[in-house]
């Protein structure tokens, strides 16, 4: 589904990603872990198409298409969704309004008829139930005055509505208490299926107790230094990231 080859990315003329490779197949959940400043969020932003991130080398193929040639909204319409680490507030725009516009924009791209108000309302109500969100969050302005937990739940709620092929969760666990974390994880797990893939970016192993990954990758200084199964996450939790770097250093020296 997604293949990233030798990706180099500059932010403000500084190289953040230095030759990253990653392959994600449909139905898989990949977790990207790594210390602060290793380039985890940069990877998420580049996949979503943020303009201020400059790709200097490498390519990203998504479902056979050159992803880097597509505008952010085209990527969204192709089925890429990013749950933001810091969801923005949009005053005066009702949550439900943005979401209906978004869904209908994606449907239009795919040659589908727009959903009518009633149909959308029904869909939204159903998904709200899954996330245990109060109705008034739909009518309120996008993320305005939402608590940290509500913002993150809202991201997952949007994901439920938009049903992406590839969902990228950028530190969705940060700032969540354990109850909110469970709700978020349940939302994600409910969407796991053989056609859909997830890239879960996190700093802590904690989230992975609830969203169990198929693969764990360790990102250090702009490169994936080690990949493994879910047990790698536990090892990281016990031993930190230092040993991965040492191991990689030896490999290079040998």
């Amino acid at each position, binding site marked *: 589904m997604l293949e990233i080859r030798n990706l180099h990315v500059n932010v403000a003329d500084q190289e953040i990603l230095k030759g990253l490779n990653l392959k994600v197949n449909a139905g898989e959940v990949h977790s990207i872990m790594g210390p602060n400043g290793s380039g985890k969020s940069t990877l998420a932003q580049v996949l*979503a*198409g*943020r*303009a*201020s991130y400059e790709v200097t080398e490498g390519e990203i193929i998504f479902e056979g298409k050159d992803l880097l040639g597509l*505008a*952010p*909204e085209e*990527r*969204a*319409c192709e089925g890429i*969704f*990013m749950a*933001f680490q810091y*969801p*923005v507030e*949009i*005053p*005066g*725009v009702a949550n439900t*309004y*943005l*979401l209906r*516009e*978004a*869904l209908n*924009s*994606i449907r239009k*791209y795919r040659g589908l008829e727009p959903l009518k108000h009633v149909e959308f309302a029904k869909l939204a109500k159903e998904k709200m139930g899954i996330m245990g969100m109060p109705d008034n969050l739909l009518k309120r*302005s996008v993320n305005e005055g939402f608590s940290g937990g509500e913002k993150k739940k809202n991201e997952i709620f*949007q994901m439920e509505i*938009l049903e992406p092929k590839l969902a990228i969760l950028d530190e969705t666990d940060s700032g969540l208490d354990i109850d909110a974390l469970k709700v978020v994880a349940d939302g994600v797990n409910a969407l796991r299926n053989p056609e859909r893939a997830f890239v879960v970016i996190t700093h802590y192993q904690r989230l992975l107790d609830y969203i169990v990954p198929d693969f764990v990758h360790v990102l250090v200084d702009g490169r994936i230094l080690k990949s493994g199964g879910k047990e790698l996450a536990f090892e990281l939790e016990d031993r930190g990231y230092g040993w991965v770097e040492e191991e990689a250093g030896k490999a290079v020296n040998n």
Partner: protein
Amino acid sequence: MSVDLEKLAEQEYKYGFFTDIEQEIAPKGLGENTIRMISSKKEEPEWLLEWRLKAYKHWLTMKEPQWAHVTFPPIDYQNISYYAAPKTKDRPKSLDEIDPEIRKTYEKLGIPLDEQMMLAGVAVDAVFDSVSVITTFKEKLAESGVIFCSISEAVREHPELIKKYLGFVVPQHDNFYAALNSAVFTDGSFVYVPKGVRCPMELSTYFRINAESTGQFERTLIIAEEGSYVSYLEGCTAPKRDENQLHAAVVELIAHKDATIKYSTIQNWYPGNAEGEGGIYNFVTKRGRCVGRNSRISWTQVETGSAITWKYPSCILEGDDSVGEFYSVALTNRRQQADTGTKMIHIGKNTSSTIVSKGISAGHGQNTYRGLVQIGKDASGARNYTQCDSMLIGDKCGAHTFPYIEVKNSTAQMEHEASTSKIGEDQIFYCQQRGLSAENAVSLIVNGFCKEVFKELPFEFAIEAEKLLSISLEGSVG
């Protein structure tokens, strides 16, 4: 992306067509003869001619105001024609007698004049250059005693009301453009709502400038008697031309005891092209007097058109407990300039006023809010709330705010909030990541910014206003 956006920007003004009909256009120039000609065309009584001439004499002694934050080359008032009207033998008495081309024009503008085809519950007065071509639903309104007609007709049919109220709010010598208007005004709407009547329909006037080198000098007068209610809306468009055209209107509102007037404007005059050539100079004096106790005047304006807007819809709160409101969205894109705001003059006791102003600047647009809140010495218990927000899109535009507050009574409560924000790249990206184009994202964010104002508009027009804002913003990103 930017190439496509440029194309969009060029085609965005969809009302820029010209209607080719036979018109009677007065020779360019302004003098006493011009005024006599206009007055005689309108078959006006002698007193009104004298009233016009008095205004003209005063105008000759006045200078154009220079304090507004706008720049434009001097206007040659002798190079303007002051009267243009479609050629017809008589005033059309019914729809069938109107030139089909004019009917088509209004259909193209989305304002069908056929009562069956119109929005339910909206009566229209259609002003084409210097004359009103028709007013719909007059009979139906008359059943409840409401008079809705062109001001020219009101001069003939209701002279006592005109004599009493013309200049009641905006005196002839009020300011340069108001004096000019008082001398040469041609047409506009007249509304009279009798005591205790709630006007059963929305009233609206649609102003169309069509003729070349012509100024439009609209005059509108709305009187709400004790305990009455009326909601009125005006819309304006003009053809695309390289020259600038002057629209200098005067609007007067009078609200008696317990009466409410809601006045909404959707102003979409041709704004000029990307280089700032052409477009309407919209120099307008709008003012209302809350003369009666517990009366209310509410102005809502959505200003997206015009090369230059100079406009301060104001309220004079004379009656105790009277209420003045001003809700404004002003958008300047390309080279547009707007200097707009309001004056709230508190005279009566326990008077209150609300000002919500949303300025949006894009392209090279310059957007100024200018407002005065004045609390007189006898206005005990007066309250004002002002909220003044500016949004910038891009880095070549400007937002300016000049709030003036004068308080002569220590019991007054004043609140003033102001903000300036740049439309966030983060917000746009967030919307894009959800599947919206950058253009749609900007339009969504700006409409959210203006929501507090749009909710004051009658429902159908709120939707129109949102669409209009989106169209006016095209070409502002990229």
